């Protein structure tokens, strides 16, 4: 019997507790709720749609803001839907981008059907093969703790898949109006330039 799996909310809250001025992009859908549960933040861009796009939103943002840290927090199903993004990011090699996949091996929003990661697909191996500077699968909080400084400051692109359990988490919904989310985020990042 293997050790109990990590709780997704604990993992995301622990990572974000150290965020500083990191810019965070979350994916549809559970990781958007996880980030909201950890505390709303003006530097969060919550995706409520565009499944498969979170990592690429992160790349465009990292390219635009090379002096800032960008962390994408998304799910295994969302990452699998845009797997080509790992090849694109590995090739583009942004030093300020990290991707953390909260991997419960399930499609959490559609009935907890198993994803490919439940059947042997190793996302960290894909990221490593795509040329990420480092990639790992994390299973314990000690491993997560050891990776937090890398995710928030190590030379990227970095990738971590954090294996978590499937226990339901309390609902926590952030802002839902996309125009409001983007306006708030741009104001936080760009200040006076936000209205260009």
């Amino acid at each position, binding site marked *: 019997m293997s050790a109990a799996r990590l709780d997704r909310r604990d993992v995301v809250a622990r990572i974000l507790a150290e965020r500083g001025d990191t*810019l965070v992009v979350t994916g549809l859908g559970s990781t958007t709720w996880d980030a909201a549960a950890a505390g709303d933040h003006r530097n969060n*861009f919550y995706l409520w749609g*565009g499944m498969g*796009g979170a990592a690429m939103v992160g790349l465009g943002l990292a390219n635009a*803001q090379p002096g*800032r840290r960008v962390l994408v927090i998304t799910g295994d199903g969302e990452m699998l839907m845009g797997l080509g993004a790992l090849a*694109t990011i590995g090739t583009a090699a942004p030093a300020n981008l990290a991707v953390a996949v909260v991997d419960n091996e399930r499609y959490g929003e559609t009935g907890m059907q198993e994803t490919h990661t439940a059947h042997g697909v190793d996302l960290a191996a894909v990221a490593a093969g795509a040329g990420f500077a480092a990639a790992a699968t994390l299973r314990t909080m000690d491993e997560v703790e050891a990776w937090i400084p890398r995710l928030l400051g190590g030379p990227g692109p970095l990738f971590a898949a954090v294996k978590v359990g499937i226990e339901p988490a309390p609902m926590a919904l952030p802002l839902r109006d996309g*125009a409001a989310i983007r306006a708030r985020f741009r104001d936080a990042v760009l200040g006076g330039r936000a209205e260009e």
Partner: protein
Amino acid sequence: MNRDSSMEDWPDAVFGVLGEAGVRQVYYVPDNGHRRLIERCHADNAMLATRLTGEEEGVAALTGAWLGGDRGVLLMQSSGVGKCINMMGIVQECRVPLLMLVTMRGQWGEFNPWQVPMGRATAPVLEAAGVMVHAVDDAARVAETVRAAARLAFDAYRPVAVLIGQRVVGFKDWTR
């Protein structure tokens, strides 16, 4: 404009328009019609050109670019448009400027029947997804069309696609 008027020079004129519009991030899936423009973007130190594995990645990336204060452009062939449609939900809901330059297949002089269905669907599918479409079939008008589309995208915060006709891009000579 004289500089827009040559059949061969339109990619250079478009490159100039992109620079004037302040485009910094360029995402593309390799395409023969955009070959020269892609080369120019790669060679320009003020631009960051990134190759994609699929066109839909570019819609998401340009959302991130604009969130971070950069303007960008997505270069693709019409066959890639179908892949982008779900991502249009992001740019519509968040009112993100999106400039797409699409070289057409499946129309003027096409020899590959498999290109025809997506070529015919390109404009209606984009419009159904809320993207404003400017089609241009005259090489002399490509640059001015891109200029207008860039204004609509970046100043009016809208998704806009310029469809560059196969008559402009040329068609493959299947006999050689």
